[in-house]
């Protein structure tokens, strides 16, 4: 859209000042976009009681250790769950299942804290113990987590103990000393990643380890971190449980934190289990809320700044005078945004159109939804029905489209919209009407 003029609203001509620049981060940025959640507290299928860890299999099924229900649940992305097992000490039954993993054959590995064993299950629910040639189960002391390594190796960590055990399929195990009380995963380079609450250790199969992540200050500060997973590009995803956030780190210690507490309609309390699907979704379990949250993992080119309270303002596209948007950012309960968009119909109404107030071409839409770090993902609504300042006719508010909003800096943003019913979609730049809130915005970013 051409930048024809820098004026928007009558009466404000003299108020516009040059847009100050407070550039956001300019590199390719990760973003977690909340898409949906499922679960809740209980024992019925689809409900959970302390979903401690999870894994995602090769077909994007989510396997969840439903710890205090003493079972596994295998769920589809849309939250349809099947229950596997119940409390017991036979194969296929579980006693405080803690860690889950998926091996190269798409089998499920489960560590049982209560029974002190590891089970290997098919998706159909047929299970066997990790056992020696005589069928004697290998006993562990309160196993905490399990991972699938190369060549069929199974790695087990224990609570209250340092180190880890590397076992063959026949339960021939070699034990190594090392970090204690660790959750574990295996990365693309076949290295062992051990998370011990405030530090991430990277170990080899020979037991040598080094402290890779867990800084003394942000970014990278970890608190009671639980599960960890990695992607094909080497990024490490950590459930930073105590901080109620996810950290995405590279090996050099550069981390970006994503606060999840208020980034969904049902608050995230204790992010614990993490898993990645092969179509770019991050699955996170909430131990306290007993829910599974699903986020779309995207990358986009910066610059961008985090959405913040100083976004509350009147914004407009300089190329379309007489139209604009008001943004309202809320964060006390959930990270939510409300937008009021005042605009016009797609075509001018006939001159003969009768009206009393304003312009028969006037239109306004509202939008609301969740914002994550950099991106607000909103549903657009159309409100119809009432007349001027009259409460005798109830309005009807209907879904009307989608909108996303990002801000390049404290004075510039981009709105992307889709209005399917009128076959319109697009993107337009926005600027603040004036820069009074710029300083406040910059203070918040600091």
């Amino acid at each position, binding site marked *: *859209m*051409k930048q*024809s003029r820098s004026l928007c*609203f009558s*009466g*404000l001509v003299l*108020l516009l000042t040059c847009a100050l620049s407070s550039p956001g981060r300019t590199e390719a940025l990760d973003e977690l976009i909340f898409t949906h959640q499922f679960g809740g507290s209980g024992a019925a299928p689809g409900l959970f009681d302390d979903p401690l860890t999870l894994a995602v299999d090769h077909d994007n099924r989510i396997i969840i250790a439903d710890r205090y229900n003493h079972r596994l649940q295998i769920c589809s992305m849309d939250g349809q769950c099947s229950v596997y097992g119940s409390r017991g000490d036979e194969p296929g039954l579980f006693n405080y299942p803690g860690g889950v993993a998926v091996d190269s054959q798409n089998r499920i590995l489960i560590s049982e804290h209560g029974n002190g064993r590891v089970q290997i299950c098919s998706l159909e629910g047929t299970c066997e113990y990790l056992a020696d040639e005589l069928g004697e189960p290998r006993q562990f002391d309160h196993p905490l987590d399990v991972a699938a390594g190369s060549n069929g190796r199974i790695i087990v960590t224990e609570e209250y103990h340092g180190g880890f055990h590397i076992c063959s399929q026949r339960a021939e195990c070699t034990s190594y000393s090392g970090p204690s009380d660790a959750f574990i995963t295996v990365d693309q380079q076949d290295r062992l990643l051990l998370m011990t609450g405030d530090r991430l250790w990277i170990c080899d199969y020979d037991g040598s380890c080094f402290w890779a992540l867990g800084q003394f200050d942000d970014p990278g500060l970890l608190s009671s971190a639980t599960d960890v997973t990695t992607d094909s590009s080497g990024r490490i995803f950590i459930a930073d449980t105590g901080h109620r956030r996810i950290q995405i780190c590279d090996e050099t210690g550069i981390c970006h934190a994503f606060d999840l507490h208020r980034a969904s309609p049902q608050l995230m309390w204790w992010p614990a289990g993490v898993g990645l699907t092969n179509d770019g979704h991050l699955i996170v379990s909430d131990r306290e809320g007993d829910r599974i949250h699903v986020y779309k993992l995207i990358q986009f080119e910066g610059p961008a700044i985090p959405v913040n*309270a100083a976004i*509350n303002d*009147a914004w407009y*596209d300089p*190329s379309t*005078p*007489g*139209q604009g948007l*008001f943004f*309202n950012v*809320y964060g*006390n*309960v959930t990270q939510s945004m*409300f937008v*009021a968009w*005042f*605009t*016009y*119909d*797609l075509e001018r*109404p006939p001159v003969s*159109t*009768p*009206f*009393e*107030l*304003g*312009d*028969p*071409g*006037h*239109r*306004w*839409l509202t939008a609301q939804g969740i914002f994550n770090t950099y991106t607000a993902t909103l549903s657009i609504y159309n*409100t*119809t*029905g*009432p*007349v*001027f*300042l*009259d*409460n005798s006719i*109830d*309005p009807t508010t209907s879904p*009307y489209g989608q909108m996303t909003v990002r801000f390049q800096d404290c004075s510039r943003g981009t709105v992307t919209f889709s209005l399917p019913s*009128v076959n*319109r979609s697009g993107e*337009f730049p926005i600027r603040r*009407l*004036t820069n*009074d*809130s710029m300083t406040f915005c910059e203070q918040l970013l600091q």
Partner: protein
Amino acid sequence: MNTTWEDILGDQGIGWGYISSRLWYAGEEIWFTLGEPSEGEPQTISLLIRETEESPEEVVAEAEFPGTVSYTFESHRIIDEVGVFVDWRGSGLAPEATLLDVGCASTGEPKPFPINLGVNDAWYVPDMPGHGVLLTVYPSIEKVFLALFTFDTTRPEDTVTGILGDPAQRWLTAFGTYSVNSAQLAIDLTVGGVFLESDPRPEWLPGGEMKLQLDHCNHITLDYDIPSINRAGVLELERVAPDRIELCEQLSATSEE
């Protein structure tokens, strides 16, 4: 201005020595007097405030027991709970058992709430769904920009159609200067545009006047007068969500200083 316990509470309840959600004006004093206990060994009386449901309790004043503990608010604040507690060496105390007196006094007329950036928000009339007011304040130039999302005065005939939204939708903007807690605004009727197009270029026509008064950080009185439709009236506005009340109160207190 002395007030009785009932005056303070109004229709609100008291639970365990607490006064629930209330606006406290700058200069207003609250006190609790507690008498001899029937048992135990109390040491101090504490006056507590909890700003919001999620805030921690904060001890703002202490006094020896028996006696009176009091606190004077330095700025306008909406406080979720103001209460009294006696340290009873861990045994606890139901304060109503020994509460002899409670009251509040204001040092003269309540001070106005200065308009500030914390007013930037979505506002509405609770019993008028489907309408809304969006406000933006520009402190550097002491201006207020307002948008009213509403509808035409009558529903259009069925023959009147449109492509986007509802043919009855209307919006007004208003702009003007504020001083302390009130603003005088000129209404603009922006006419002639097309959805996200620069052409045709809209025109701005004078549409009437509005007077806005910030009564406190969650209440605005908006007088409007729109001669073209021969309509005038008053809207009592509240915020759609309370998130920015605290910021408004902080900035209001700052501007008082």
